[in-house]
């Protein structure tokens, strides 16, 4: 561990490599986390199948790219298909548990995650899949630092998508309805907002966002039917730490998480890369609890 830290001190240029890799992949985590926060905030359903939506989107992109479509262009059809898929899942499963207590909806989405994993295993097989974007690698600092174009492109796309979502939430009628429902569903209903439609739309939109994240992941990392859980955990860490309805917080936490993962992989070893994420979830929860306690004390 100490020798690894020494490398970073002696050759600071490797910090740049770790930061770049971490921040660029963190943007993709941010997408999935934003989707989770959206559904959580509006419907109060904590979607445990979030990561499996990401994987499913990735597999759809993989299938399309097998038929000759460049994976970047697969983003749009995949988002559309995932939107429809999200709508079906909402009508079949989520709409039935949305009014129930927390535990029911957790169980339902947990079950959904298992069904999705097994279905993907049957449909696409258990082998690890990747999609080749065919883009180049750029070298910085005499080749000591490399960055792939696909990571840069996906970073920019994530940024654009986030911007579009913010504008949509602020300006469009549907966006306003979503925000109204998130603030107070009953009041929104009284004011004539069709909250059922808002719920269905939010859940479908989340599925589409996950689909985009999945296609990007398939070009940067790998796909496997049972890897969804890692993305679910990441999304939960980010949202828990940032808080609902806090988009800048989500962005900062997502990028930070990406970088922290890289550092823990470098310093502690690859075996701790994902363990760090779970550790962070614990810390985030404890921290939240302490904050809440302070809050209560302030109220008294």
């Amino acid at each position, binding site marked *: 561990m100490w020798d690894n830290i020494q490398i970073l001190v002696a050759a600071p240029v490797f910090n740049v490599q*770790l930061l770049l890799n971490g921040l660029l992949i963190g943007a993709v985590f941010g997408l999935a986390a934003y989707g989770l926060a959206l559904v959580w905030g509006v419907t109060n359903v904590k979607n445990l199948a979030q990561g499996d939506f990401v994987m499913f989107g990735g597999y759809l992109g993989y299938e399309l790219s097998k038929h000759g479509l460049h994976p970047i262009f697969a983003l749009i059809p995949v988002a559309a298909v995932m939107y429809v898929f999200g709508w079906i899942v909402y009508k079949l499963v989520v709409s039935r548990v949305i009014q129930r207590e927390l535990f029911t909806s957790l169980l339902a989405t947990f079950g959904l995650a298992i069904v999705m994993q097994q279905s993907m295993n049957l449909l696409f097989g258990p082998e*690890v899949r990747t999609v080749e974007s065919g883009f180049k690698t750029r070298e910085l600092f005499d080749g000591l630092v490399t960055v*792939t174009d696909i990571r840069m492109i996906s970073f920019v796309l994530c940024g654009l998508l986030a911007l579009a979502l913010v504008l949509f939430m602020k300006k469009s009628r549907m966006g306003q309805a979503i925000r109204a429902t998130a603030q107070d569903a009953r009041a929104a209903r009284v004011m004539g907002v069709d909250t059922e439609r808002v719920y269905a739309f939010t859940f479908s939109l989340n599925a589409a966002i996950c689909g985009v994240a999945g296609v990007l992941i398939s070009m940067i990392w*790998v796909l496997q039917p049972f890897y969804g859980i890692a993305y679910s955990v990441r999304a939960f860490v980010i949202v828990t730490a940032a808080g609902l309805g806090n988009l800048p917080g989500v962005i900062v936490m997502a990028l930070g998480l990406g970088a922290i993962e890289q550092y823990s992989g470098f310093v502690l070893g*690859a*075996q701790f890369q*994902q363990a760090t994420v779970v550790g962070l979830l614990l810390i985030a929860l404890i921290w939240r609890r302490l904050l809440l306690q302070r809050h209560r004390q302030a109220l008294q």
Partner: protein
Amino acid sequence: MRPLFKRSAMALAVGMAITVGTLAGAPAYAKVDGDKIILGSAISLTGKYSQEGKNARDGYDLAVKMINDKGGVTVAGKVYKLEIAYYDDESTPARTAQLLERLINQDGIKYVLGPYSSGTTKAAAPVTEKYKIPMVEAEGASRSLFSQGYRYMFAALSTSEQYLASAIALAAEVAVKNGKKASDVKVAMAFENDPFSLDVRAGVLEEMKKFGMTAVIDDKLPRDLSDMTATMTKVKALKPDMLVVSGHTKGATTAGRQLNEMNIAVPLVAFTHCESADLVDKFKKGADGILCPTQWAETLSYKDPVFGSASDYNALFLKTYKDYDTVPYQAAQGSAAVLIWADAFKRAQGFDTEKLRDTLASTDLETFYGHIKFGPAGNNIAKPMVLRQIQAGKYNVVAPSKWASHKLDYPRMAGGGTMKQASK
């Protein structure tokens, strides 16, 4: 109460009738039936190992056919034909153990061929030990199979700790050839935290100790591995002479992709599972220069009187089974296991299982699959793992040099390919 009793009594009677019927039908599979020697195997024909199980069975069947076509096995002056009784273990170890009980107890089988996979072989061995029935297995490579003191199990294949040991030996050879000391070689290791990969790691460490090499990186990869850039950054910083990775197909895929993406030049790179990860198809030129261990390759110069050379076996197999493009090594291993049994019957000149066990233990046999000689633990100590290097998209045998068909391309450059290819 009465009707209930009546019903259960009837069920009992029916059950007994079935049991008696099965027992009466059992002699159909005796150990030796007329002029037939019947071997038994529980193999995976359905479930997650169905493809590999089929490969192994096709290997068993091809060897049986060839031995019978060439006149069978002569024991004490009488000519016998071989036959195999199969059951499908559905790729589950518990079922393998059940079916072996059945083969031995009900069907009277006295000579067993192994199942497919280390897990099912682990379940089979206690059963064959219990009944003192010899088993020749060809599809279970886990190191833990050979540390239990099993007396009746013999394995044709190299064990998992041998998988990358030959790569370390090769690195030592290359270092010496280039005027360096073998102990100067710096090795970067990344192994998954699972029984198979940790076996491979143990073998690598043992071999490294022999040469006095140092490990500059020793990362354990998580089960749901999808990123190795942090490990690769360390590789870039520490410039090792060799990188060894074992983490099933995900390890080979992730390491292969990110090594190239980050433009890292490591002179020697060795992965397990190159073939199943389909590296050549995925990364094209980016796969060039990677070393991959294999149990067997058709270009090896091994020979035997039944099949001829390794390439003869290859041609015969492809002619016999039209649904294959290449010969899977599981099939070659399976055929070798049957050859071992035939050899044991010939040398033992009898059917006593104790005598056959001792005869098997003293096997010293040249086959198309490689030399077979068992250590005290029942593992094959005579056959090395073969290293193939991906050269221009083809898998060519480069080590051990005695059996190599091609020269090692060295050193591997960033992004795939080697110095030699670049200068062409």
